């Protein structure tokens, strides 16, 4: 009986993990294009709050970390340090082509990307810049991954 209750609560929490997604956005040297599209995805027109999304200002409260930009020399250490502050389980979603390949900045002396050199990337939304619809689709995929991650934590 008690065991069942425990299991049910855990299931409810797993379920909630995919329904409440608080986004934290890190700009790792982006040109601001992707940042604007992320903000556009949160506006009433695309309404990311339908999925339970909320922009949060603190990495401690993030469930999904959105990274944009090709990871410049200046931002590399900050990116790594900020990601280390995010509590498990969380998903890392890269927005735009820069964080997954370097895009037009590839080969520059000041670019240390791609992001998956430093951290495992769960979803990567390509495009220069990706449409808000694509970002929303990426967030929805990350939600499913979050649920699996949360399940993995207590099994």
């Amino acid at each position: 009986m008690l065991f069942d209750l425990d299991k049910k609560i855990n299931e409810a929490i797993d379920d909630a993990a995919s329904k409440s997604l608080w986004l934290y956005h890190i700009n790792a040297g982006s040109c601001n294009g992707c940042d604007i599209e992320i903000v556009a995805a949160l506006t009433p027109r695309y309404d990311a709050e339908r999925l339970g999304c909320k922009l949060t200002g603190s990495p401690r409260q993030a469930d999904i970390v959105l990274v944009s930009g090709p990871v410049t020399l200046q931002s590399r250490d900050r990116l790594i340090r900020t990601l280390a502050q995010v509590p498990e389980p969380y998903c890392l979603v890269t927005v735009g082509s820069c964080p997954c390949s370097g895009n037009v900045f590839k080969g520059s002396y000041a670019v240390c990307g791609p992001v998956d050199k430093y951290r495992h990337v769960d979803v990567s939304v390509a495009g220069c810049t990706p449409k808000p619809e694509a970002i929303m689709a990426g967030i929805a995929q990350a939600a499913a991954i979050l649920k699996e991650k949360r399940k993995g934590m207590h099994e």
Partner: protein
Amino acid sequence: MIGFIQSVLNILLLPGLAFTLIASILLAGIDRVLVARMQRRVGPPVLQPLYDVLKCLGKETIVPRKANEKVFLLAPAVGLISVLVTAMFLPIGNVSAIRTNADMIVILYLLTLASVTLIVGSAASGSPFAGVGLSREMVAMISYELPLVMVMLTVGFVCGNGLATFSLAKIGAYQAANGPLLLNPVLWPAAIALLFVIPCEVGQQPFDIDEAETEICEGVLAEYSGKPLAQFKMMHNVKMYVMSGLFCALFLNIQTGFFLADILIYCVSCVLVTFVSMSVPHAVTARFRVEQVFKFYWTVVTGCAALSLILVWIGL
């Protein structure tokens, strides 16, 4: 014996714990849906606050190295308990879980305690963002405390026959005899003042200067994650219900004699108060600056509350 069982049931079930938890989650969810509809979007599901709290429960709890661990982890629990206890004093019709001779004073202190736990918790987290947030929270407290006390005094004077009463039961009895106080034009400025106090006390959107996520990284909650964060989020939801319920108790206590009808009227008026005082300002205004909040509350809101107090004092 029956009286004892009934009071235990009152505390645990109907006007008490279970009702408070369910009502506060639904009220917070309805508020978010209402804001979304006013901005012409679909909005989150009504149970979104429940998902938020459950999700936070399932996350890792990180205690920063600079933080004072005990205070950091205990503050949210004390805050949540204090608002839950506050909810016990709110009457539905003429039934309340706990009733004393000075409900309003206890409510005032417990609500302040909830804000103080937010300040203490953020001070213990050792983050500069939390430091800025807690100073802002203090400014907010200084802003809304005075009008809140004045509104309570005014209502107490009206219901107490010359002597101020602080008992919500007596205020309820007065309203049962003379109709809800909101129908009394002398008290309209006080009602308006309380409607403005509600969002600032709760920390809702136009007055959420203490956790402005775009300016100071969630401010007081900057270092909180996992279970303590869930407690603070739940505290926020319960506070929302408590403040709406307090308005209903002070101004809109309608008693029909049937308990079920009373519950229904109470719930509807709670939603109405939430809509007027929290959803509409949230949907139509941007966040105020710190000094704007301070100025607004010390001129307009305190002025409204004082007007009612003076009118009642000279016996209108």
